[in-house]
């Protein structure tokens, strides 16, 4: 009877040890993919061209108008017509610089590198199973309707897979809308589109680089929390 009890106890202990070894994550393999292309700001430069025709019409009307009204119409027309062309050209140049800067970003690659680098220091290798961390970028880029305020947003979701079993799934969102933003993420970088375009889109590239690190830091933090007993 005593021998039988000891054998059952040994079996229970060994089963427990096996389950523990299986449950412990020793190392991580990261994959990152983007579900969508980068969000581009709206090109509103064409809207200014609507003032061109009325401006030219005022100018022409001024040539035929009585002297009392002529100067006002000509000057007004000259301000409105060429002014619309100039402002439209400037706006289009700004939009192009932002789009080019967004096009130069390798967001997926940067996040993957940041994840691997941060995991190497924060989640050291240990004995256990190899887990997969899949991060899907649902969206990133510059959004906003008004040219004086557009925001760089990023939305991603990651899941931790041990074998075929999903043990953790979290969404991380850096957004200007409070309802969409994750509680632990900082506010999105918002500014005028002109500010984003300065120095060939320096703020676009800097924000993307910082978001890559930030997303990686938030993922690693949650993996670290999940790993703690």
């Amino acid at each position: 009877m005593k021998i039988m009890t000891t054998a059952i106890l040994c079996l229970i202990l060994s089963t427990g040890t096996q389950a523990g070894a299986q449950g412990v994550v020793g190392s991580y393999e990261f994959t990152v993919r983007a579900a969508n292309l980068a969000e581009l700001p709206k090109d509103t430069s064409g809207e200014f061209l609507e003032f061109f025709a009325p401006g030219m019409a005022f100018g022409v009307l001024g040539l035929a108008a009585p002297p009392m009204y002529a100067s006002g119409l000509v000057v007004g027309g000259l301000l409105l017509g060429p002014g619309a062309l100039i402002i439209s050209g400037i706006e289009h140049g700004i939009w192009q610089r932002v789009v080019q800067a967004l096009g130069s970003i390798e967001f997926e690659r940067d996040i993957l590198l940041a994840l691997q680098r941060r995991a190497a220091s924060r989640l050291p290798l240990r004995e256990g199973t190899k887990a997969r961390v899949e991060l899907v970028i649902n969206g990133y880029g510059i959004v906003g309707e008004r040219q004086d305020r557009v925001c760089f947003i990023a939305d991603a979701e990651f899941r931790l897979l041990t074998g075929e079993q999903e043990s953790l799934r979290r969404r991380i969102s850096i957004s200007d809308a409070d309802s969409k933003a994750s509680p632990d993420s900082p506010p999105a970088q918002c500014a005028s589109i002109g500010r984003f375009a300065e120095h060939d889109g320096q703020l676009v590239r800097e924000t993307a680089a910082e978001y890559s690190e930030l997303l990686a830091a938030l993922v690693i933090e949650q993996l670290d929390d999940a790993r703690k007993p």
Partner: protein
Amino acid sequence: MTRLAALLALMVLFGCAREWRTSEPVQPTTYVAQSYRAVSSVGRLSRLAVMPVRLNAEADAEQLALPESIAQRQRLARELQASVSAYLANQKGYETLNVDMTLPSIEASAISAAGQRLNVDGIVLVERWIVQPWSTAKGILNVFTLNIPLYRALSAVNLRISIHETMSGRLVWQSESKGEESDLNAKIDLPRVLGDLDNAVPAQLRR
């Protein structure tokens, strides 16, 4: 050149916010971490102290000395300080500290000493100007002086927000809102003044 002239004309006509940023390196004092920003990014100064607002109200000396006028100005100053602080924290991600102490001067050494004492990366100074509404006489004078007073009124500063870094005490960022303001209770368009400021380096990347 034509574009610049057109922009200048528009700025004078409509009045707007004007922003200035340093191109020199900006250095935080409360943390050391790898930065993914340009060295001149003001966002590196993640912890800021917002000093009491300097409110310059144009009125008769007698009126300014009235207790209710003093109380109203103090209330407005406190509200503006709180609004600036909240905007910097909620929209730009800065850690802010509302401070009651007044600076002995705005010289670099005084700013640097105050910043170190408060354990912040930078000091935020807010100044507000309120003028008296135009009188009929001023309106008539404007007609006879070819709208010069009007243009001056449109380009007058009504709000200035400056950020100085603690490390050196020097000015690193400044933005102004243009256009004379005579209504003490007028709503201040802070996004227009602070909207283009870089976000603070997030706390997760300062560790």
